[in-house]
């Protein structure tokens, strides 16, 4: 495209911009869609194995309260990045961008810490990925999600540092927008994972 500019030929985007979402937004959307499908496959595998094992429901040896609080924190973390940071930068406010991001990052980190704590107490009770099939499935599904939280956090941290350096403006902040999209996705997926892993067995009684 560089050459086109050099010869004074307008790039296509300038010739006809039909409006609508940016190319980057669509790219991010399809990337997220295919990631979501990996989760869908893992969830399907989880349910398939659970049912094949007799369908009595897989129940964790631990209490549900801790993961429940953790869930509230993770879902809550979608609020500051949207209502404070995104709405802020749309009005050009750097301060709101930075504080909103920070709040979300802290909440995400708390969730991750909670997950590590949960894992270690389960493992100390002898419930491990190797101990039984349920363990394999539990740690894989929640761990894959934890991996996504971690990636999301790294993503947001990079955006945060860039925000501190004033890289984003009212008009140009796609990296931030992509980070926000990814974070919402990580949150939304957790709703499914949490329902399948923690709530479904309760329904079965």
């Amino acid at each position, binding site marked *: 495209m560089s050459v086109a500019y050099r010869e004074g*030929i307008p790039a296509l985007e300038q010739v006809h911009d039909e409006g609508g979402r940016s190319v980057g937004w*669509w790219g991010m959307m399809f990337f997220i869609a295919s990631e979501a499908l990996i989760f869908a*496959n893992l969830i399907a595998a989880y349910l398939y194995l659970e049912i094949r094992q007799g369908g009595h429901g897989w129940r964790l040896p631990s209490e549900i309260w801790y993961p429940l609080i953790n869930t509230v924190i993770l879902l809550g973390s979608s609020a500051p990045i949207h209502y404070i940071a995104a709405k802020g930068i749309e009005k050009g406010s750097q301060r709101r961008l930075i504080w909103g991001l920070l709040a979300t990052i802290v909440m995400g980190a708390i969730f991750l810490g909670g997950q590590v704590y949960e894992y270690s107490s389960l493992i100390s009770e002898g419930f491990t990925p190797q101990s*039984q*099939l349920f363990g*394999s499935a539990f740690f894989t599904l929640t761990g894959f999600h934890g991996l996504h939280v971690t990636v999301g956090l790294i993503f947001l941290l990079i955006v945060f540092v860039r925000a501190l350096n004033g890289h984003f403006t009212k008009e140009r902040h796609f990296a931030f927008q992509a980070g926000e999209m990814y974070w919402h996705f990580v949150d939304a997926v957790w709703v499914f994972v949490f329902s399948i892993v923690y709530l479904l067995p309760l329904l079965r009684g």
Partner: protein
Amino acid sequence: MATSTIVERPALVRQKRFSETYIGQWLTTTDHKKIGIMYMVTAFFFFVVGGLEALLIRTQLALPDGKVLDPQTYNEIFTMHGTTMIFLFVMPMFTGLGNYVVPLMIGARDMAFPRLNAFGYWIVLFGGLFLQSSFVFHAAPDSGWFAYAPLTECGVQGVNCIPATPSINMDFWALGVLLLGISSIAGALNFVVTIFKLRAPGMTINRMPLFVWMTLVTSFLLLFALPSLTAASGLLLLDRHLGTHFYQAAFNGDPLLWQHLFWSFGHPEVYILILPAFGIVSEVLPVFSRKPIFGYTFVAWSGVAIGFLSFTVWAHHMFAVGLPVVAQAFFATSTTLIAIPTAVKIFNWLATIYGGKLSFKTPMLFALGFVAMFLIGGLNGVALAIVPFDYQVTDSYFVIAHLHYVLFGGAVFAIFAAIFYWFPKMTGKLLNERLGQIQFWLMLIGVNVTFFPMHILGLLGMPRRIYTYAPDLGWNELNLLETVGAFIIAAAILVFLFNFVTSLRQGQPAGSDPWDAFTLEWDTASPPEPYNFKTIPVVRSRRPFYDKKNPETADWKVAVH
């Protein structure tokens, strides 16, 4: 965007940067045309590798009690043959072709994400080399291209089979496939966004060339099917290295989980390998028949229908594992259903050439060869959907016959049609026509001599994936015949390579439009300038370049699209 900020200043003597040298231009390029060519050359290289592996297989099987390969090596060779042909040849070849042609066809200057595009290419190259490097470590994957558990978990904690010690063979496979998957996802989302967002003014969805349509459907299939493979091979790696039990029956796990996950990728995958071929043929046949495609809408939407249906048929690969009868009936039905949109296309192609002014240049020959061979492969595919028949021939050479009629007779013929058709666009030179004809006939004969007898051998009970056979089973003559056929194919490929090298050097200059073609890519120089079009064309019908050349009878004057 990789905007180089260098300003041309002839007065200044400046050191050339690496990215300005000839090699550097290729290694650092983000131009879709260069990337496309790199994809295709790489894919062809792997085609040769996979082809040599096929020749080894056929040499071993030429005579009973063959001694060329030992059983373990044979397993590695056929596994790598299938894996290479599918993941390293056909897929990158179509990605490369799409890369080159799609932006030109829709009147764009490049793909939507040029750097992501380059990233995808380099991953394919290194993923491919990584897979092949397993031979160096005497640890090539050996469980077949669909890597069935629990074979893939031999020796892993609690899974007993021979060999009893875990080997790293299948780690190469699982990691390689994960890598290649990343690249395909990157490529696919790039195509989808490019096709949705970067079309020239007037290039509505309903005016897009059919190759663009099929690339779009293929990209969606990749986006939605590859995640199953990613999940499946991820779990496999966990079983092998973390001690989880997903595929281990002894621990309540289930080897069939692998089959379900794999084939819910695997069947859409076979359409990923053939839909772009449909697209190619739908471009070539009209140009060499001097007619617009018959029933554009049907060709386009039957492709979409195939895309959807392809997600509902996966368990036809699993009839023999003891699925519930209801499930078998369901999958048999959905599989036969998918034959309908496929047959629609065949009729469209036949109607396109019917009554046309046919010119039998090499691209046309390969396209016609495609229709004939794919028809055979499609028909015996429908036969395999009949469950009782499948019980008899599954895992026999009948299946090998089927998959080679669709993959070789189908995909590979279409690829050669594409190479002969677009080579002049990419290089400005024509491939030699005489050599092209020789290659075509050699290949047509070779393919049928090699793969047709496999039907019979399958019916005679010869299982696939056996490394040798006893002399008194009545299989000797046909096996020898197949091996002869394989070497005829090899000769055809040699003719092509010779043609390629000589034409590149001293081929006849092609001009920008050697075939009097219809679509926008021919409305540029050959090869096109880096920015493709000086001014972005405005499109008013399905054959924009035809309109420009024939303003009197332009499509938009006669038809309402």
